[in-house]
């Protein structure tokens, strides 16, 4: 049962049918070979899925952040190999917040900002602006029409987009553990197609936070699908004359996977609600300040839990499956490889642990429970 508080179930049913039709294990393996699922992208684009939460007057499909995230959760169930989060929830958010528009057909991506990135803006944020440097682990860069980035300038953070077709752009393929493109992008004096100051509060930390929220929701979907797949297998697979689901040792694994899926789905949803509320308060597409109940705690806690779940749940799911789960022909790896990858994207355990530190210190002993209980 896919449902998401406040989101039209018809939207989610429709998205689920689309992904289910295009993301079986064979199709995912083909997409891994090809770099992405172009056909799926085109059908999703027809339905406007990638641009949900981007205002219509900015070229988007309208709808709110909850709708967009709910669709990501459905996409996560199927491992949909397209830049869904990148196009709308991330690039669309950056562009629209900066008063820019998306092109309602082209896949976009966003430079997540890793250690070792050297992107810089030369010539100031005017007509002479040129981008140079290297960005690592850019999702789906080879498939994207434009690469959106947040770059520093004397006038504050600027949102820029460069066409991947530009001669100054070189995309060096790399992948994550799931075979999803995480390319290295080299820019050599590229003129941005668009450039505008980022919305108030939008800075690299805010981008990582939004990216983490997108990944957490996608991971929630993957964990739910993993729990269902494992449960189905354990009831179908028989050894010693009975379903393996009746063995205590296997039951323990089934319980753990279901628990982790429940924890992450709950955490993702609560974090999404907190972020959407903060967005509203900030007046639309803006960022949110880093104090108070603006979603900072919720997103940090949710990504930390999701990262831990990626470890705990995959270990249990694989153990419940036995050898079959290690094969390419059985779909479990499409979920586990993605979870292993996504836990390192937009903040690993340590990143979010460090971010939670000041919030906990600020709360102190007397404020600790209110921090946990949201007040």
């Amino acid at each position, binding site marked *: *049962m*896919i449902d998401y508080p406040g989101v039209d179930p018809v939207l989610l049913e429709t998205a*689920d049918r689309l992904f*289910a039709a295009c*993301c079986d*294990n064979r199709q*995912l393996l083909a997409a891994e070979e090809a770099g992405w699922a172009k056909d799926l992208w085109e059908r999703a684009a027809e339905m406007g899925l990638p641009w949900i939460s981007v205002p219509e007057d900015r070229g988007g499909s309208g709808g709110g952040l909850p709708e967009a995230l709910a669709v990501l959760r459905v996409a996560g*169930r*199927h*491992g949909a190999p397209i830049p869904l989060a990148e196009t709308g929830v991330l690039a669309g958010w950056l562009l629209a917040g900066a008063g820019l528009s998306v092109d309602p057909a082209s896949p976009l991506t966003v430079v997540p900002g890793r250690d070792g990135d050297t992107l810089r803006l030369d010539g100031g944020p005017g007509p002479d602006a040129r981008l140079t440097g290297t960005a690592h682990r850019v999702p789906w860069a080879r498939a994207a029409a434009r690469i959106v980035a947040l770059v520093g300038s004397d006038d504050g953070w600027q949102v820029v987009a460069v066409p991947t077709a530009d001669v100054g752009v070189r995309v060096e393929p790399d992948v994550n553990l799931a075979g999803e493109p995480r390319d290295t992008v080299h820019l050599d004096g590229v003129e941005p197609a668009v450039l505008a100051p980022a919305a108030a509060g939008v800075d690299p930390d805010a981008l990582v936070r939004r990216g983490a929220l997108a990944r957490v929701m996608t991971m929630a979907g993957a964990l*739910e*699908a993993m*729990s*269902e*797949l494992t*449960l*189905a297998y*354990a*009831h*179908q697979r028989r050894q010693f004359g009975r379903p393996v*689901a009746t063995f*205590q040792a296997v*039951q*323990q694994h*089934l*319980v*753990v996977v*279901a*628990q982790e*899926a*429940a*924890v992450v789905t*709950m*955490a993702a*949803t*609560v974090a999404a609600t907190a972020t959407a509320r903060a967005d509203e308060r900030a007046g639309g597409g803006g960022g949110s300040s880093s104090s108070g109940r603006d979603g900072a705690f*919720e997103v*940090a*806690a*949710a990504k*930390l*839990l999701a990262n*831990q779940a990626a470890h705990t749940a995959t270990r249990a799911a694989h153990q419940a499956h036995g050898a079959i789960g290690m094969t390419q022909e059985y*779909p479990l790896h*499409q979920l586990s490889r993605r979870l292993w990858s996504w836990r390192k994207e937009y903040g690993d355990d340590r990143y*979010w*642990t*460090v971010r*939670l*530190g000041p919030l*906990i210190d600020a709360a*102190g*002993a007397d404020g*600790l*429970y209110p*921090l*946990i*209980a*949201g*007040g």
Partner: protein
Amino acid sequence: MSRPAAGPAFRPTKLTDVELALRDQVREFLAAELPHGTFRPGLGMNSPADPAFSRKLGERGWLGMALPARYGGGDRSAVERFIVTEELLRWGAPVAYHWVADRQSGPVINRFGTEVQKRRFLPGICAGRLGFSIGMSEPDAGSDLAAIKARAVRVDGGWRLSGTKIWTTGAHHNDWIITLCRTGDSAERHAGLSQLLVDLHADGVAVHPIPFLDGSTHFNEVVLTDVFVADDDVLGEIGQGWAQTTSELAYERGGPDRWLSTYLLVEQFLREFTGTPTGERARDLLASAVSRWWALRQLSLSVARSIDTGGAPSVESALVKEMATRFEQDVIAAVERLVDLEPSPRSASLFERLLAEAVLTGPSFTIRGGTLEILRSVTAKGLRP
């Protein structure tokens, strides 16, 4: 790649303004009644028994909250009861005196009892004046409750009950014990069990303490020797004891008592070690534990809300309980590794005393109310593809 199935459902929920106001009231009451440093806080439901404190809660309408007002209850919701319980436990308040009566005996009497029984017992429970024990486990019937041997035989006007019950919390200061016993001779192990209300002061009832490994004496053995139980004190139907017992706790499993037992340990660590440069290990613990409490609380609250809206979240509450009690133990281990001290139960430091108590009693967290192993089987059976 997989079609969605009807898995466990936890719908996120938030507290309403009315509920938030209740929380504020409880917090104000606790801050005034039990200021930090003026009382000995306990670890969750292991906290001390304090009948006077329980009566004060009763006066405020915070016991038997979900019971009908006509029997002294509050006609309030599971979420409201959740809020009060959560605040009491995280404060380390002395809840032991009313704990079982409020959490378990009141609801079961309300559900299965006669009108007379409800009028007789519920007002006292709601006032914090009547303490109850649970008579389920026996020496040879622990996880395997159907192996119960305590037996009641029909006599004129009632039953004559004999047997031995163990792990009966608080029987030395409580008034009644709801006793699961055999009233029939069915070969089917689950049939022929019934629940009887037994006066702990009746003839033939002997209560012996079972000291815990830390020397505390919450637990008792209750030996019943030809105790007369009147027909009026049969709870529910004769022969339905098994069904009544298994249903009574289904939704209560995942409550705040299952994840708050060691909360105070961490709060007190933060209080006593404040200003100490916290290393990576302390940061790891705090970030992980706070995140998990936050998520567990949302899941647990969602179960309470589901009960209020007519749901049947038995799988959900079992899932929460199983992971929550493991987490409570993980917290002890993590805190214990943080500090290079040999905790003494006699220490001047509250943190150190709580740590000593947590280390000593922690193993019971995944045993009480059904071992982890049994809980996992029950939970797994509720998970269907």
